C-alpha cells in the first residue's frame, strides 16, 4: 500500500462532533506524529482509518480503493489502549494469532523479545500489569511489520525506561521496514525526535500539518520590553502573546522577509510542544 487518503471525514457521537471534515494523506515510509490534547479526535480518526468504526460522512481511500479487503488489512495494524483483546487470551496465543494474519510477524523472535522484557508468555492478558500489557501491545504492534502501523497512545502505562526502549524499537523497525508508523500521543516533546511529519489535531480539526523541520524553523519567539514589541507586533503573524512584568514575548510564524529587529528584542527558538500549546490556546479563544 502506498497511500491512505482521508477524505472529508466527519464523525458525530450523538450531538458531539468528534471529527469535522478531516482531510489528510498518509504516505508510505514515514513516521508521523498525530498530536493533540485529550478528546481532540485522535483515537476516533485512527479507529475510522482502521475500519473499527464508521464515519458519519466522508471516506477513506486505501491506495485509491474504498474497501479494506483481506490483502490490504494485512498491511495495516492498529493498536489501541482500550482492552479490545479477549482478556483470557494468553500472551503466547495473542502472538500466535497475530503471526497467522501478519506474514512478517516472527513468532519465535517476538516471544524472545517479550521474555527479555520479563514477560511470561503463559500469562493471560488480564493477569498482566498495566505496564506489562503496554509492552506486549506495543511490541506485538511493531512486530507485525505492517506497511502502516497505527499506535494510539503507545506509551500509556510504560515507565520511563520502557518508553526509551519502545522508542528504540520504533526506530529499529522503521529502519528495517521503511514502513509508515503513526504515533498518536500527547507527550509531544518526548517523541518529536522520532518524527518526520507532524499532524496537529484539535476539536476534531487538523489545524497544522507539515514536516517537523519546517514547523520548527518557521516559528520563534520575540521577547522584549512592551513598547518595542508593540512597534513591531503588527508586522508578524502572532500565535501567542505573553506579558510578564513589562516584558512581552510573542510566538510568531516566520514571515517570508524578516524585518530588522530594534535593539532590545531577542529571538529564541520554540519547541514543538511550545508551538502546539500556543496554537491550541489561540484556537480556544
Amino acid at each position, binding site marked *: 500500500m502506498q497511500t491512505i487518503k482521508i477524505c472529508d471525514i466527519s464523525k458525530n457521537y450523538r450531538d458531539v462532533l468528534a471529527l469535522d471534515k478531516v482531510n489528510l494523506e498518509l504516505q508510505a515510509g514515514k*513516521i508521523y506524529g498525530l498530536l493533540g490534547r485529550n478528546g481532540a479526535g485522535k483515537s476516533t480518526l485512527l479507529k475510522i482509518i482502521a475500519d473499527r468504526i464508521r464515519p458519519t460522512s466522508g471516506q477513506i481511500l486505501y491506495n485509491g480503493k474504498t474497501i479494506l479487503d483481506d490483502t490490504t488489512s494485512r498491511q495495516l495494524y492498529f493498536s489501541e489502549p482500550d482492552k479490545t483483546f479477549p482478556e483470557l487470551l494468553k500472551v503466547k496465543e495473542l502472538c500466535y494469532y497475530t503471526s497467522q494474519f501478519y506474514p512478517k510477524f516472527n513468532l519465535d523472535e517476538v516471544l524472545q523479545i517479550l521474555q527479555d522484557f520479563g514477560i511470561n508468555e503463559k500469562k493471560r492478558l488480564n493477569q498482566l500489569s498495566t505496564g506489562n500489557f503496554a509492552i506486549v501491545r506495543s511490541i506485538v504492534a511493531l512486530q507485525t511489520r505492517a506497511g502502516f502501523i497505527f499506535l494510539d497512545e503507545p506509551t500509556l502505562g510504560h515507565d520511563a525506561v520502557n518508553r526509551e526502549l519502545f522508542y528504540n524499537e520504533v*526506530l529499529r523497525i*522503521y529502519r528495517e521496514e521503511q514502513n509508515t508508523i503513526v504515533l498518536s500521543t500527547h507527550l509531544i516533546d518526548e517523541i518529536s*525526535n522520532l518524527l518526520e511529519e507532524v499532524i496537529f489535531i484539535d476539536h476534531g480539526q487538523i489545524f497544522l500539518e507539515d514536516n517537523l*523541520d519546517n514547523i520548527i524553523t518557521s516559528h520563534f519567539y520575540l521577547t522584549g520590553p512592551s513598547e518595542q514589541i508593540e512597534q513591531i507586533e503588527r508586522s508578524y503573524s502572532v500565535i501567542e502573546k505573553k506579558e510578564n512584568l513589562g516584558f512581552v514575548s510573542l510566538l510568531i510564524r516566520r514571515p517570508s522577509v524578516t524585518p530588522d529587529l530594534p*535593539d532590545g528584542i531577542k529571538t529564541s527558538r520554540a519547541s514543538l510542544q511550545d508551538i502546539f500549546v500556543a496554537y491550541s490556546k489561540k484556537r480556544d479563544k
Partner: protein
Amino acid sequence: MKLNNQDQRPIYLQIQEGLEDAILAGTYAEETQIPSTTELSQAFQINPATAGKGVNTLVDEGFCYKKRGIGIFVKKGAREMLKQKRQTAFKESYLSPLIKEAKQLDISMENLIRWIKEADDANN
C-alpha cells in the same frame, strides 16, 4: 558529538554541526568515512530521515561526497573549507550578539577589546 534537547534548532542542523565539528577537530579525517544515517539514527534516537538530512547538507555544501554503496566520505580540503565557512559565520553568530550585549551594558569598545586580550592571555 552530542545533541542538546534544550537547543531548539532543528535536529538535522545539530547533526550537521556536530559532524562539522568532528571534521574540524580531525575526528573524521579527510578521505575517511563518516557515520551512516543508520548509525546516527541509532546513536541519537532520531528519525533516519532527519539524520540523512544532516548528512546530505554536508554533501550539498561540498564538504563530503558519496561513494555509491559504501557511504559518505570527507572530501580532501574539507577542513580548510569548513574553517572558512565558520569564520564567515563567526561575525554573525558571535560578534553581533557580543557587541549588542556590550552596548546594552555601556561597555566601551576599548574595554571590550582589552577584556578579550586579557581573557586570551589568561587562557594561554
